[in-house]
């Protein structure tokens, strides 16, 4: 796997863990709340993929832009989207980031740079290019990240976007979270290239494959790509190898995933692996990590109750925000 000069220090590693703990707890709580019938929503679990956005986020500023997808709540939480606003949104309540009109697949939080969440495979990338073009036009120090899954690398938008970003030398990072399945279909059955990172070669840009369950390795790859973008040296395609521990969407039991493959993936769970490493390296004690985890459980208790107590939007919202007031 890739190595370079970027090594996260102890506090940065702890910050990555903190984000991973938040994401894992949030996913577990989401599935629990749906299972108990307190909320009804389409939910795309990201359990198993927590290391990727956590390592990304510690390399980004609030002002950097993110375009993510329906399986993207981990991406936006890591970027800083507040729990209460998230939960109110996925509950369809007026206190959500989008007044409950976006829902789990279409969250936007401009304040934290979460500019677009799309339910259309591949669509995060063409829009990310436009945000990056805006940055280029204004001479700003801002990076745009488009995240997507392995399935999206087979759709036209991926290829059109990488090519445009290459010829325009845009400050953008294309982050593929390769969880080995596009919906129900195995990677190799849908994807001609052995490695998605290799597709970068076709566009004359840098492509890197990295262990998506290793926050330290991810940190190094993201730091380099962010530095490249900030230096005006163009886009990077990153393929982070990972796995999702649940079906495509909540309710899908994932029967198409062989039991041994799932067992191997769970044995490679990034969360306990990184947690043990921090203790072994003396970066944090078991008690400190347990306190972080307990803190997020309490935050989630509060966020869920806040969301469920928030009112639904008024029915006038059905027809509001279709058009703005003409100039």
């Amino acid at each position: 796997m890739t190595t370079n000069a970027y090594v996260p220090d102890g506090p940065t590693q702890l910050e990555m863990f903190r984000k991973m703990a938040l994401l894992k707890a949030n996913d577990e709580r989401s599935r629990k709340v749906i299972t108990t019938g307190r909320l009804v929503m389409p939910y795309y679990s990201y359990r198993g993929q927590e290391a990727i956005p956590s390592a990304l986020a510690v390399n980004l500023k609030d002002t950097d832009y993110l375009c993510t997808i329906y399986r993207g709540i981990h991406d936006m939480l890591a970027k800083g989207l507040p729990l209460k606003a998230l939960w109110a949104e996925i509950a369809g309540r007026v206190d959500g980031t989008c007044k409950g009109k976006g829902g789990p697949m279409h969250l936007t939080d401009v304040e934290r740079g979460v500019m677009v969440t799309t339910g259309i495979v591949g669509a995060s990338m063409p829009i990310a290019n436009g945000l990056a073009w805006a940055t280029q036009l204004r001479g700003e120090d801002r990076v745009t990240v488009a995240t997507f899954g392995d399935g999206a690398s087979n759709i036209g938008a991926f290829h059109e976007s990488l090519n445009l970003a290459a010829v325009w030398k845009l400050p953008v990072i294309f982050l593929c979270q390769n969880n080995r399945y596009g919906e129900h279909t195995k990677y190799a059955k849908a994807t001609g290239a052995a490695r998605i990172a290799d597709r970068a070669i076709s566009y004359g840009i840098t492509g890197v494959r990295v262990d998506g369950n290793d926050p330290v390795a991810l940190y190094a790859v993201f730091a380099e790509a962010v530095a490249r973008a900030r230096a005006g040296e163009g886009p990077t395609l990153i393929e982070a190898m990972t796995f999702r521990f649940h079906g495509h969407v909540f309710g899908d039991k994932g029967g198409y995933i062989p039991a041994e493959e799932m067992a191997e993936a769970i044995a490679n769970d990034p969360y306990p692996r990184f947690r043990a490493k921090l203790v072994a390296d003396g970066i944090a004690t078991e008690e400190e990590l347990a306190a972080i985890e307990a803190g997020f459980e309490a935050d989630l208790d509060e966020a869920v109750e806040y969301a469920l107590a928030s009112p639904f939007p008024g029915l006038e919202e059905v027809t509001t925000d279709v058009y703005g007031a003409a100039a």
Partner: protein
Amino acid sequence: MSETQGQTQAKQITVLEAYKAALMDAMTDDDQVIVLGEDIADPEEGGVVGVTRGLSSKFGELRVRTTPIAEEAIIGASVGAALVGFKPVAEIMLMNFTTVAMDMIVNHAAKLRYMSGGQTHVPLVIRTMTGGGMSTGGQHSDYYEAWFAHTPGMKVVCPSTTEDAYGLLRSAIDDPDPVLIIENLPIYWTKGPAPTPGTRVPLGKAKVVVPGTDVTIVSYSRTALESLGALKAIAEAGISAEVIDLRTVSPWDQETVLASVEKTGRLLIAHEAVVPFGAGAEIAAVVQEKLFGKLKAPVKRIGAPFNPVPFSKPLEAAHVTDAAKIAAATIALVKGN
């Protein structure tokens, strides 16, 4: 209305020059206006018909940017830049090519204001050209305005004159939401009064081009000019027709159309697109709903038959809605046969 002030000018320009002037003036007035599309910068000759010629030399190739032939990437980049305050004017060379970018237009540009609860919006203009009559066949001349008019969040504009080309494009660039401008290819080189710089023609406002008493003809784009061309034959049949150029297909000017049909009692809707499920169906439905008891005849629609645009010249001519067909349909509507 300010839009008529330009008519005092003696100078004549083409419709194509009017679009170009609107872009030039908008970019001069506002540095957030940016332009992108295939072949549009001056090293690529400023567009295949030259609407954008001169822009990149004046404003630079970062603001006036030639793109790869990749319509989804073009509209995606426009959406992204628009989300953070730019006013992109994207050129999709031909209307049929908008189909390649439908996800970005329909699922993203049109909906992001709504889905974000008003946090973001997409002040994007998409210019595209189309139209039968130049033997460009089944994939280069379709009118798909009804597809976009059927999409909440979109506005659809179809200019037919120099002043509307200029004034509607300026209003579209000012507008905070995505606007599709459908430019008719065969009329690019027709001439009309040079618009007064800075003039706006409001979106959603139709124009009564010729007043009349017996029948209302509602049309837009090139077909509005064909409707005017039909007036001589209609008058010779002893009929007084009122011609309305809708100018904006969505949102369409119900007030002007309903007032006219209330007066005449008869309505013919003429467009170049195929008739079934076309814009004419929506107008007809609203008119019969609001004016049922006041109509002297059933509302009539005329447009292309339900087939792809053919290549062969006589077949293409049979497909396109021209003045002769509009005259015949109008006379039949009024005479009751």
